[in-house]
């Protein structure tokens, strides 16, 4: 080696020099390229399917029961990637390798702002017409009057507990958020691992500390935000596990590592189906603890770099077709977006049970939104999502 590398020092300098040159080149290119966020063009005419479609979805949204018939009918093979959090969905969409995503409200605004998704021509989605009208033209799916997606369904985040260990049955989020009560289940509490979980604390505080004046749990000023963050910091020592993968939480509840916590219908049904002693807020209370709950209203969005746009449009139309939308809603346990789906559910009173046709009910469910500095009072004094992310890091420690 030593004889070959006659001038190791010179070689090293050469490497450093080329590296510096490269850095300057990058910096130069970087400053000239603007981060323009044109969201791509909307499709004007539906063509032939491209043979496959790559989706990002929540667990339980893309299942063989309704993807098989879709594949047979359209010839578009469905490749699905399940994501655990909205942040994950945003990062995956930014790779440009996916055609579409089932985005919740705390991802959709970011995707539109970042130019990652394209407007949707709803006239190419015939089933859009019969979607519940209170899901159309909402701030999380329509931006400046342009449609950016097709509503999929909605629901509330659940409070779930192990009926053998948690008695009496809790009726309030206080069981995991009030430090005095949470202490009883130290190390057995399960909390959602995402900055948006701060809103759950805000919903609790809205009901229990009215002097904070919280209106919308996603629009928090300095004082309100601090109160919510402090509540979660107090909760931290009692949390057994923060979950972001549904499978991880199912395993923790099944194995006894978690006894009470926030969950989705999907995990609850999986555990219940496996005969585990779990319960969630009853349907008679609208699945809601006394304070109400955070929830979601999801939208199928198409990537601005979609390689299979025709298949993606066919998918968006398929997933809100009466039959498929009924199946996915029942499988996941959420209210369907398609009004005609209510006639196709296996359980006859499913739509009534999930309040699908009852706009008043949804007033107590706070759909995930992207927190912005501008909360509509023109003062830009609310905490934005970046603050939420930083606070979440400090809550978990």
């Amino acid at each position, binding site marked *: 080696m030593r004889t070959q590398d006659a001038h190791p020092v010179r070689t090293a300098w050469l490497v450093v020099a080329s*590296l510096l040159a490269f850095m300057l080149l990058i910096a130069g290119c970087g400053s000239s390229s603007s981060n323009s966020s044109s969201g791509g063009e909307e499709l004007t005419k539906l063509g032939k399917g491209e043979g496959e479609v790559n989706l990002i979805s929540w667990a339980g949204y893309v299942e063989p029961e309704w993807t098989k018939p879709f594949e047979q009918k359209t010839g578009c093979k469905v490749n699905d990637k399940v994501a655990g959090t909205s942040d994950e969905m945003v990062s995956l969409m930014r790779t440009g390798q996916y055609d579409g995503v089932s985005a919740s409200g705390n991802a959709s605004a970011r995707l539109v702002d970042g130019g990652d998704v394209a407007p949707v021509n709803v006239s190419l989605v015939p089933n859009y017409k019969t979607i519940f009208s209170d899901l159309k033209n909402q701030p999380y799916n329509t931006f400046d009057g342009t449609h950016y997606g097709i509503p999929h369904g909605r629901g509330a985040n659940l409070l779930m507990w192990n009926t053998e260990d948690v008695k009496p049955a809790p009726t309030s989020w206080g069981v995991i958020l009030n430090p005095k009560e949470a202490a009883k289940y130290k190390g057995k509490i399960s909390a959602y691992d995402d900055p948006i979980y701060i809103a759950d604390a805000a919903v609790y505080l809205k009901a229990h500390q009215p002097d904070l004046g919280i209106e919308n749990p996603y629009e928090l000023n300095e004082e309100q935000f601090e109160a919510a963050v402090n509540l979660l910091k107090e909760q931290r020592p009692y949390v*057994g*596990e923060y979950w972001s993968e549904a499978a991880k939480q199912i395993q923790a509840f099944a194995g006894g*590592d978690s006894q009470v916590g926030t969950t989705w219908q999907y995990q609850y049904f999986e555990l219940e189906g496996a005969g585990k002693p779990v319960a969630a807020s009853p349907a008679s209370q609208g699945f809601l603890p006394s304070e109400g709950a955070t929830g979601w209203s999801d939208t199928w969005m198409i990537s601005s770099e979609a390689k299979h746009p025709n298949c993606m449009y066919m998918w968006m139309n398929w997933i809100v077709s009466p039959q498929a939308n009924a199946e996915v809603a029942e499988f996941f346990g959420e209210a369907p977006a398609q009004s005609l789906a209510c006639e196709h559910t296996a359980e006859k009173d499913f739509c009534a049970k999930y309040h699908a046709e009852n706009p008043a009910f949804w007033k107590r469910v706070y759909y995930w939104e992207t927190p912005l500095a501008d909360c509509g009072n023109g003062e830009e004094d609310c905490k934005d999502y970046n603050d939420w992310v930083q606070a979440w*890091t400090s809550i978990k*420690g």
Partner: protein
Amino acid sequence: MAGPVGWLVIGYLGSLAVLLIAGFWTVDPLSGEVVQGFSLENFETLVNEPVYRDIVGRTVLIAALVTVTDALLAFPIAFYMAKVASRRGKAILVVAILVPLWSSYLVKVLSWRTMLSSEGVIDWVLKPFGLHGPGYGNTAVWLVMSYLWLPYMILPIYAGLERIPNSLISASEDLGASPFTTFRRVILPLAFPAVIAGSIFTFALTLGDYITPRLVSNNQFIGNVIFNNISNNLPLASALALVPIVVMVAYLMVARKLGAFEHI
């Protein structure tokens, strides 16, 4: 030479350079878009916010513990393989060490997750003695990482010991050195670069991992925070990604001071 060097500079060091530059960018608080410029804001955040100091400290500490644990476990195994085992025994051991590397990383971590759960096999074994398993937490991360990276420590040490001629050991014995002295004055100095080579693997792999902490603990490691910020605050994630690089460079400098690279 030009081809490999070009690849190294552009493909590898180049992307590192981009990473380095991004650490000096900022995010516009209103639009959330990345603003390209020069600012030390992210580094100030990392230094001033106690939570980041805790996370870096925790990550480096676990990485160091994993490295020491693996070195202690690996040396006897490697020594047995290189100097004691028969040719056939050697082959069997090499295969036994390589086989876990062929199975999926995720499967291994998830198996540990099941084993460490409160109704898992570890608790079940310890229960008759009135003991509890470690549960999920830093101890679990340390255990799982030590298991995961052990082969990366055994193999370099084995290769290093294999290169030590047996005649040196015999000579030491003939000159009256006790086995312990032979080990301390002959084998260990010669095998030391190999231990350092193995430790670079275990240390660097632990510093960068974020899936194990997520599955067997509630604690955040450097990788978790990078992951959480990547879609939302890329500059902060980049700044944080520099921390393991700086730690690694410092580690290599110390290793060099200790003479780890003298025989390469």
